[in-house]
């Protein structure tokens, strides 16, 4: 049976919702959008960096601007009420989607990165000290690695990294050794954006819990493409971004357990997050607004809710299956090509991306040449520089898949990689 016949949903129908997939490239890279000089079909395989935005989501955003744009929370007039209801309900949609108890546990941020910094500042600066340690993994994204490293420097807390095995998985013995009674926080990436490893968050959260430490899952690469339930994972915090799951840019989510968020002091100060202000002092609004200072990203929050509805309509398990299919197929075909080193676990145990290098071809050259064939991949360190150092490479090329990608697109990738390899041979 061909891989196409195994698609868990109608990929062609999905593609119709994404007009950008119809465009060509090849022309002037400094002029936004398609023009006459673009004459090569786009094959977009950079979804781990950002996914495209389907029409229903674009329409939810334009509908907001065209028919009920208004500031939220405090307005008595109808537009403000409509915007408030939609914006606040977007929190409920997120809560439902990730199994949170309610909107109190869902804080909108601008991206995953800000969600981590929020916790690092509001909880970390207040709670960490020289006796504490924070345990990360060697495959952390800079969003958590740099954040905890720098908060560690500010507070004196040390940072430990759970080792990555040669197979690209977490060394759980090392995890058990590094997480100890001085551990205050265990923060781990759920699906690695470089190795495609699916980490055992539940076990890590349980280990953290055993030692009285908190746990934080970086779910930027998991919430978009597999079932994620905060209760089931047992984490205290979890973060992800809208733009990697059919949503707009400028919106991210911090999930936090209510009692924990309640106990934390606010992070950003300003309007909407206060209860009572005098010249001398202030008190704070209820959750989640206590952590959403200023005019929030209203259109983007509403857009995120529309994205979640879009993803749920397809079915998150089906999306997981589709990504697995493509990742395994790509892994097999690139391996067959020869001269290709793929990082991370075997094809059937990985999330929907493949980072690799080709013998004798620098990742940046490879990605430039792929671009000449219309194939959009990312080249660089994918915000995991220390992991790349450990892998002994300065950079890698990463192809990452999403709901609209096809077997034919993987074939186009493989063909272009072959051309590049031959050019440099």
């Amino acid at each position, binding site marked *: 049976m061909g891989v196409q016949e195994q698609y868990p949903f109608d990929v062609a129908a999905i593609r119709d919702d994404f007009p950008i997939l119809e465009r060509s490239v*090849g022309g002037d*890279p*400094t002029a936004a959008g398609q023009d006459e000089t673009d*004459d*090569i079909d786009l094959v977009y395989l950079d979804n781990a960096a950002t996914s495209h935005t389907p029409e229903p989501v674009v329409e939810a955003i334009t509908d907001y601007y065209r028919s009920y744009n208004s500031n939220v929370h405090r307005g008595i007039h109808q537009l403000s009420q409509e915007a408030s209801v939609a914006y606040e309900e977007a929190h409920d949609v997120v809560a439902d989607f990730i199994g949170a108890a309610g909107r109190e546990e869902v804080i909108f941020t601008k991206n995953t990165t800000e969600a981590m910094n929020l916790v690092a500042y509001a909880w970390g600066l207040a709670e960490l000290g020289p006796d504490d340690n924070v345990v990360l993994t060697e495959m952390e994204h800079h969003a958590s690695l740099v954040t905890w490293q720098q908060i560690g420097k500010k507070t004196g807390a040390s940072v430990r990294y759970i080792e990555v095995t040669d197979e690209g998985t977490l060394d759980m013995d090392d995890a058990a050794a590094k997480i100890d009674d001085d551990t205050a926080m265990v923060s781990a990436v759920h699906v690695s954006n470089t190795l495609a490893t699916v980490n055992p968050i539940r076990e890590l959260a349980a280990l953290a819990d055993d030692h009285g430490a908190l746990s934080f899952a970086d779910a930027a690469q998991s919430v978009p493409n597999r079932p994620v339930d905060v209760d089931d994972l047992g984490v205290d915090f979890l973060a992800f971004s809208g733009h990697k799951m059919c949503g707009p840019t400028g919106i991210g989510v911090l999930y936090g357990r209510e009692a924990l968020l309640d106990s934390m002091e606010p992070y950003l100060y300003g309007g909407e997050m206060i209860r009572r202000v005098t010249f001398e002092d202030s008190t704070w609004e209820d959750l989640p607004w206590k952590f959403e200072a200023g005019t929030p990203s209203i259109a983007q929050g509403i857009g995120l809710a529309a994205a979640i509805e879009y993803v749920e309509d397809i079915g998150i398990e089906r999306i997981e299956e589709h990504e697995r299919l493509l990742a395994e197929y790509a892994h097999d075909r690139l391996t067959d090509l020869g001269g290709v080193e793929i990082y991370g676990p075997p094809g059937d145990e990985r999330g929907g991306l493949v980072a690799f290098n080709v013998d004798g071809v*620098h*990742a*940046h*050259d490879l990605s*430039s*040449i792929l*671009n*000449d*064939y*219309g194939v959009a991949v990312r080249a*660089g*360190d994918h915000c995991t520089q220390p992991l790349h150092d450990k892998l002994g490479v*300065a*950079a890698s090329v990463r192809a990452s898949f999403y709901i609209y990608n096809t077997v034919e697109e993987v074939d186009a990738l493989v063909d272009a990689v072959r*051309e*590049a390899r031959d*050019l*440099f041979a």
Partner: protein
Amino acid sequence: MGLGSDMYRQQILDHYKNPRNYGELEDPDFTHVGENPSCGDTIKLEVELDDEGETIETVSFTGDGCAISMASASMLSDQLHGMTVEELDSLDTDDITEMLGVDISPMRIKCAVLGRQVAQDGAKIHRGELDPDATRTQE
């Protein structure tokens, strides 16, 4: 397939695979290392000047990086022979793309100009006009 590797014309690939002036000098007047952290490209350049210290007599380089940065450094090392230090100072990005003879896409410009930057910074440090600690190798 349309553009198929326009940036990777024969000349570039040739310089990448067979870099000119590759190696180290015995007694350079100045040596400078620069890197492009976002790409991981590193180039070390060594220069011997004439007795007046005005004209470049010999250049060599070593390095690690993409084809664009390595080919560009290799071609530049050829061009620098006989150039005055003043001429080196005035080399700009256009001179480099002209030398390469291909259109460099905006995201690869950094790679293309790394060699030039290392040479210019090295010369400035040699003349005492630049603090070695302050050198930046990014555009």
